């Protein structure tokens, strides 16, 4: 590491320690916080020193570089530094104590992290509490330390800083016609950094809006809930107004409402509900702590947030209703947009992908809750038959099973599994007859996972090729469609169930990646429950598309674009991180686009970088691609709003995202043509539509040309301009 890099690194360690106080890694917000701490010069210096000291010690001890850089080990020391800086007069003795207390706070941080980390819980500002309480009690007997009087006579301080003008300014500012509650709100905000005046609060509020609209909104919600609770319950409003405690509500609101939990209506309701609990804990703990002449500082916030997160982890159902943030992105907005988008796209996808249990196109003649037999306990089942273009299911007269198209057609395993039950000796019925004694006829039950079995029934007698206990692969032949059991005409009965017996109660479980045909129109279903009269088939892979969208880490892609007569080379590298996330990284701009490939579908999941790189356009153009070619097939999907191009509207949406979404970012892909020529080409046309509600304000159009070698050309049209990127193989 050279000096420049070292300095850069040190800068991050320090600045992030400031941001972390508000759960932020936003540098601008951090700088604002940094400035605010220097409103009390000595406290500011003490805070900065504490950060530097504890980060240096952490670094010397060889603690995690990533965590130090994130400020995870600095922010508690910062708070302790600010606290003691406010309390005591600076001096040599003071700075020695500051060093000690920084180190002890660091130790507390690591220790508490060790304890709570096991439970997947954050340590918040507990190290700060332990640090400052320790030092306050310990220093009671240290006569060399002098209590600071700066906070007491603050007009004197003002005069010392800026003379009479400053005092006047201060007076004018304090007399501004700001509603009382708002005044308390700003002061409470500033109290987080041991300041206690409105100006600091306003500065922090501005920074907070800049960092996160949701966090700002939550801070208001948390604070005002508390304010009105105090009024309602008749509690001492001075407690809120004149001590360093109002921020407990603010921090809890941000933590619960959007930082550790994905922002949603539910999270906001919980913030409102938890606020009185904080007030109660605050009053009771304050009473106890007063015996030790200690302030409770952020104790109520720590207790409530940690307990609540712990409780949530014990839930057994509805985990997505009040979802915990699994990958911390240090932005409530990102949590909301990405989580909602993830749930919309992947939330309902089943763990095990089930294929249709046949080859070719069949028709659903009885679906879930069908009118004949799919009722009550057996309502989640399908009957399939083969129909011709005239919708007939048999040729000739239909008087014998052989006349039926589906009769004697292969039945295959829907997914990998073990054969659990086989019945193979029921006679096939003549047309029209039903065998009520052997209701299910010849059947096979396959176990795919615990509590997940599939059953096929009415197979042809002696046609079953598998045996009980046999391990079977997806797509392997099980037997042939027949007319045994309660089956007046040949058909295939198919159901999922949670127990291994033939004819168990059915469960609803979706089929993955199938095609629904309606005359010449094809619709792709990533996952769904086939409906009555649909003509469905398993997806047939198109090797060209599959190959073009198959990317291997280490691979490089080069494109050339021409702008103003100048040729620009874009080089992307495909990389994988330790968490098995795969992404493109643009060598020139550093932009990254994450993607995943599952089965026959390629997805982009996230983009990080400037909204004008070629990689951004590639991300938009190929947001979701199914490796199959059915002419005029259309795919739709929604982008996460993080890529919304109009930032002004996004700013407004940020405030509202916990409640509703009014912006839309839609992706559409059309399977346009198979181009004829010496080499086969496939052209996919996609578009991104960004807008508000039903209006579309901004549209990007893309054309992606594929050859057997891969993606050959990408064309982007936006507001009358066209960019053409040619692949350099």
């Amino acid at each position, binding site marked *: 590491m050279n000096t420049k890099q070292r300095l850069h690194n040190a800068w991050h360690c320090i600045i992030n320690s400031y941001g972390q106080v508000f759960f932020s890694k936003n540098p601008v917000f951090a700088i604002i916080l940094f400035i605010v701490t220097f409103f009390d010069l000595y406290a500011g210096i003490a805070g900065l020193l504490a950060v530097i000291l504890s980060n240096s010690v952490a670094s010397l001890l060889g603690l995690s570089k990533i965590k130090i850089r994130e400020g995870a080990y600095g922010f508690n020391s910062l708070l302790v530094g600010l606290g003691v800086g406010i309390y005591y007069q600076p001096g040599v003795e003071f700075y020695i104590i500051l060093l000690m207390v920084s180190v002890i706070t660091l130790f507390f941080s690591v220790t508490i992290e060790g304890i709570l980390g096991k439970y997947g819980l954050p340590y918040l500002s507990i190290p700060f509490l332990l640090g400052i309480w320790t030092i306050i009690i310990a220093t009671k007997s240290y006569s060399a330390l002098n209590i600071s009087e700066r906070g007491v006579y603050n007009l004197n301080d003002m005069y010392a800083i800026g003379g009479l003008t400053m005092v006047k300014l201060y007076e004018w500012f304090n007399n501004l016609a700001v509603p009382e509650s708002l005044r308390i709100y700003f002061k409470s905000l500033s109290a987080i950094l041991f300041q206690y005046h409105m100006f600091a609060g306003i500065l922090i509020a501005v920074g907070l809006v800049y960092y996160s609209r949701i966090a700002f909104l939550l801070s208001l919600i948390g604070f005002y809930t508390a304010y009105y609770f105090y009024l309602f319950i008749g509690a001492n409003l001075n407690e809120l107004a004149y001590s360093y405690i109002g921020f407990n509500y603010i921090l809890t609101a941000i933590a619960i409402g959007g930082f550790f939990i994905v922002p949603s209506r539910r999270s906001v309701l919980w913030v409102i509900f938890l606020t009185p609990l904080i007030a109660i804990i605050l009053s009771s703990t304050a009473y106890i702590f007063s015996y030790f002449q200690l302030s409770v500082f952020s104790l109520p916030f720590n207790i409530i947030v940690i307990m609540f997160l712990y409780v949530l982890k014990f839930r057994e159902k509805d985990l997505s209703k009040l979802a915990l943030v699994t990958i911390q992105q240090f932005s409530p907005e990102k949590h909301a947009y990405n989580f909602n988008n993830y749930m919309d796209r992947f939330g309902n996808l089943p763990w095990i992908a089930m294929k249709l249990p*046949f*080859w*070719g*196109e*069949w028709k659903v003649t009885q679906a879930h809750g069908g009118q004949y037999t799919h009722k009550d306990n057996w309502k989640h089942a399908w009957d399939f038959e*083969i129909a*011709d*273009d005239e919708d007939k299911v048999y040729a000739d007269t239909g008087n014998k099973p052989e006349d039926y*198209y*589906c009769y*004697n*057609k*292969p039945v*295959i*395993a829907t997914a990998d599994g073990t054969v659990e039950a086989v019945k193979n000796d029921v006679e096939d019925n003549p047309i029209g007859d039903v065998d009520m004694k052997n209701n299910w006829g010849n059947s096979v039950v396959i176990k795919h996972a615990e509590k997940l079995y599939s059953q096929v029934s009415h197979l042809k007698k002696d046609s079953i*090729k598998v045996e009980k206990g046999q391990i079977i*692969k*997806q*797509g*392997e*032949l099980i037997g042939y469609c027949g007319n045994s059991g309660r089956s007046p005409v040949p058909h295939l009965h198919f159901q999922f169930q949670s127990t291994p017996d033939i004819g168990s109660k059915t469960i609803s479980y979706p089929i993955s990646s199938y095609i629904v045909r309606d005359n010449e129109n094809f619709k792709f279903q990533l996952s769904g429950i086939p409906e009555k009269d649909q003509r469905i*088939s*398993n997806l*047939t892979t198109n090797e060209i598309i599959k190959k073009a969208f198959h990317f291997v880490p280490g691979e490089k892609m080069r494109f050339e674009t021409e702008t103003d007569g100048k040729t620009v080379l874009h080089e992307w590298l495909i990389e994988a991180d330790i968490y098995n996330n795969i992404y493109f990284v643009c060598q020139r701009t550093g932009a990254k686009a994450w993607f995943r490939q599952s089965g026959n579908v390629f997805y982009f999941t996230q983009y990080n970088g400037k909204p004008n790189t070629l990689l951004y356009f590639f991300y938009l153009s190929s947001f979701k691609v199914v490796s199959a070619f059915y002419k005029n097939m259309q795919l739709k999907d929604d982008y996460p709003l993080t890529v919304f191009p109009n930032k002004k509207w996004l700013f407004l949406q940020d405030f509202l995202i916990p409640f509703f979404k009014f912006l839309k970012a839609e992706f559409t892909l059309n399977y346009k043509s*198979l181009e*004829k*020529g*010496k*080499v*086969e080409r496939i052209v996919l046309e996609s578009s991104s539509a960004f807008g508000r509600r039903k209006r579309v304000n901004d549209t990007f159009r893309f054309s992606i040309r594929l050859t*057997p070698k891969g993606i050959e050309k990408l064309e982007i049209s936006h507001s009358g301009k066209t960019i053409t990127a040619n692949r350099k193989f």
Partner: protein
Amino acid sequence: MEKQRYERPIIKKLESNMPNKFGMRTEYRPMTHIDNVGVKDLINEHGSPLFVISEKSVRDNIRNARKAFETRYPKVQFAWSYKTNYLDAVCRTFHQEGSWAEVVSGFEYDKAIHNGVDGSKIIFNGPDKTEDDLEKAIKNNSLIHIDHLDELYTVRKLAERMDIKAQVAIRVNMDTGIYPMWDRFGFNYENGQAWDALNKIMRSDVMELVGLHTHIGTFMLSPNAYAVAAGKMADLAIGIRDKYGHEIQYIDMGGGFASQNNLKGAYLPGTDINPTIDDFAEAITSALINSNFKPEKLPLLILETGRALIDDAAYLLGTVISNKRLSDGRRSTILDIGVNVLFTSFWYDHKITPAQPFTQHTEDTVVYGPLCMNIDVIRENISLPLLNKGDHVVIQNVGAYNMTQWMQFITLRPRIVMIDLEGNVHVVRERENLQRLLEFEKVPEHLKTFEL
């Protein structure tokens, strides 16, 4: 009420309904319309004789065939056998239905390209591929099915020179229990020729073995032969996988499925005894599924079915020129359809149906064509209703091979029309005329004039 038709008086021996060499009396309904278009109108408009192709039947056939295979096997591809009928209209109907092209000569190859088929979707079969043809095929990534070692060497040489990896397969012939065994095309499975060729390909850097091809015979009446062949092909493919770790992409089972036509010498009608496409599908797919391929590694199954998809989709309309009594007392009818346009009458007892109403009376008849040649016999024996001069007949199941093997001999080749799905009639090939023929001829200067 329509005026009753005149039918000539006949004297007929009473028979006890035994099948005899004149065939069974099965044909008693006139065929007045094809896809709701009147036969009479067609002849009035387009002349006689006239080939009529039903687009609906073509599409029904290929869809039915696809359904038969696709519901039994996960990956199926049909390739239209050009030699069976390479009329552009027919080929393009098949291509619209998703079929690739299967060609057996440079001319057919060019026709497929002209029809807009992508090079990589043309299967190039046959024993005679010239260097020029092969060069084109290699350049276009076409699938070259090698027929003999000399061709293998040529492909290798050309691919080396062009520095393009040729996409090749070999044609394999084998004993499938039928007689006669076809062994003139491709490499024999049993005697090791096939492995010899495969080894040569696998050791070459300029050839990519993409598939295996077989074509066990034509107008096959035994689906089981296909099951045997498919089993042997699967063994070969798995052998290659085990020996070279190379997985071939497809197995091409060729064609040869019988249509519903009546083969000469068969006692019972083809509709009753010939296997259906479902029977063939069942045999082939069962053999492949039950072979040692893993379910997810099953190769693409290519079928080059020609005849079974087109035969019953075309009709030949003709007109009675005259009735005659032969010396032995047999009745003969002369049609304006000769063997030069109905080439398949050498193989089949074509079904001939009058196009106008008639009574139940029939007479054993010999049907001749209009050519002044002794070989011009359309049916040697047929039990036909009593036809008059000027009556029309419809000959069925003529879609395969006639429109490619016909010739201009004594008479010129007639017009071909296609009836589309809405019942509109389109001329898809014009009738020949003298002018057209003369265009090809050149008369040396000294022969131009003469005096008689």
